[in-house]
């Protein structure tokens, strides 16, 4: 039976999650690049959002949520076949469930934009994102939320630590690696052209994330309330952690730093947000802040891969951390909703399997996709285009014409 209150909240949550990508994430990323590439970043987010929406309706939703095997859903709901105005999904219309999930299918490939800014070909963005949705996003969603093998194992992933952040983070790294670094990486690249814009984007992401996590309750009640609270706490704590680390290490806490902490905290709490209590929210914020901070350095300095806007370090590592810690802080002892028949140990094992399997799968398939892109559209923009800036080279426009 449709519940108008639950429906009202998921309608809102859907708007909030779309808002995360457009314009939230778009601005967050656009502020971090050089001014000659701002439009290309916005264009990537916009085009991915449109493309993902159409692909989701064509087959993505079906591959993720229709009856199928342990590995992938079937095609019975391709082109939303069988979905009518009166179809229900729990207490909300199925059309709304499709829409809500679609906004996840939009933001996940859009997160990966951060890895390849300032040097990728636009045609490659479309090709990679399109293939990625079918080959990685839909199956993994099926594994976790569509009744697939990880769901069978009892994996906990409330709002997408595995489905969204691990998939996007690992894939981002692979693309960055295949694409090669920006000129001057790591120490000669240009600083973010508009830190103010980064903050605006991060603020929108924070607000929108309420829809992401509390919306994943798919109802407007106790679970949504607690999810919102722990989401918020994790974001606040991780922000402060990042601020303190920078203050101690460099003597000055930066705006770009504090909001990077915000996103790290949000990504970290995501998988756990429906299971943990306030204590869990705070501890995950602490953990996410510290671990993602270290991960940023690790990827840039040790691995020397130009995952330009730290998609793996902030999203992937954050999401993985939260997924693993969910096994601990979901326990009633920590104010969580309880682990049912599982123990912390057994749950931790399941969570680890989920993270590792998804990471490997995403990495390998993304590598294949990169090869396909190289063989067809090509991956890297020409040096001339990169020097000129992708805004004019690929889109014939300039961000600022003052």
């Amino acid at each position, binding site marked *: 039976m449709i519940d108008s209150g639950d429906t009202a909240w998921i309608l809102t949550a859907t708007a909030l999650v779309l808002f995360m990508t457009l314009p939230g994430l778009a601005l967050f990323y656009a502020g*971090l690049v050089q001014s000659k590439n701002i439009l290309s970043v916005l264009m990537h987010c916009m085009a991915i959002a449109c493309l993902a929406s159409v692909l989701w309706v064509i087959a993505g939703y079906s591959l993720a949520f229709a009856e199928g095997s342990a590995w992938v859903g079937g095609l019975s709901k391709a082109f939303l076949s069988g979905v009518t105005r009166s179809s229900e999904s729990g207490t909300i219309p199925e059309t709304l469930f499709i829409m809500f999930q679609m906004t996840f299918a939009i933001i996940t490939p859009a997160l990966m934009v951060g890895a390849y800014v300032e040097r990728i070909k636009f045609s490659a963005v479309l090709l990679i994102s399109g293939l990625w949705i079918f080959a990685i996003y839909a199956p993994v969603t099926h594994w976790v939320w569509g009744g697939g093998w990880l769901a069978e194992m009892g994996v906990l992933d409330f709002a997408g630590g595995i489905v969204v952040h691990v998939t996007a983070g690992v894939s981002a790294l692979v693309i960055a690696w295949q694409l090669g670094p920006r000129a001057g990486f*790591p*120490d*000669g*690249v*240009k*600083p*973010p052209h508009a830190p103010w814009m980064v903050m605006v984007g991060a603020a929108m992401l924070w607000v929108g994330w309420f829809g992401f996590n509390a919306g994943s309750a798919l109802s407007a009640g106790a679970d949504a309330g607690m999810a919102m609270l722990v989401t918020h706490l994790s974001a606040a704590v991780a922000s402060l952690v990042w601020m303190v680390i*920078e203050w101690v290490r*460099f003597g*000055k806490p*930066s705006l*770009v*730093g504090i909001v*990077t902490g915000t996103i790290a905290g949000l990504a970290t709490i995501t998988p756990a947000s429906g299971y943990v209590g306030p204590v869990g929210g705070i501890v995950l914020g602490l953990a996410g802040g510290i671990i993602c*901070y270290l991960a*940023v*350095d690790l990827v*840039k*300095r040790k691995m020397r891969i130009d995952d330009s806007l*730290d998609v793996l370090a902030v999203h992937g590592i954050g999401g993985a951390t939260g997924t693993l810690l969910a096994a601990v802080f979901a326990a009633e002892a920590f104010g969580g909703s309880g682990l049912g028949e599982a123990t912390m140990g057994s749950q931790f094992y399941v969570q680890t399997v989920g993270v590792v399997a998804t990471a490997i799968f995403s990495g390998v398939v993304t590598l294949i996709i990169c090869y396909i892109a190289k063989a067809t559209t090509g991956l890297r923009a020409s040096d001339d285009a990169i020097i000129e800036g992708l805004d004019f080279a690929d889109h014939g426009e300039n961000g600022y014409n003052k």
Partner: protein
Amino acid sequence: MKWIVAVIQPHRIDAVREALVGINIQGLTVTEVKGYGRQKGHTEVYRGAEYQINYVPKLKLEIAVDGDLVDSAVEAIASAAQTGKIGDGKIFVLDLESALRIRTGETGGASL
């Protein structure tokens, strides 16, 4: 006539303007520039990565003056712009052959 080019610290502009007005020089043209010199730029750190900004924002003033005003103008600028810190800037003087006020067609000193 002379063409004075002065590069100064941005926050000294009001003081310099006042000093010039004090010796009755009203007209000048100001440009925002990036200066490279002994005063080094700074380092910005974003997400642990260091970015070298190796210039310093400065203002460039261009002032056409009558030949007999040049010394007092240079002096006025120099003393108003000085803070004693590296990066206070420079004053250059070039020769100016002619000047014309577009509106009236006046030339020479009368046009300034």
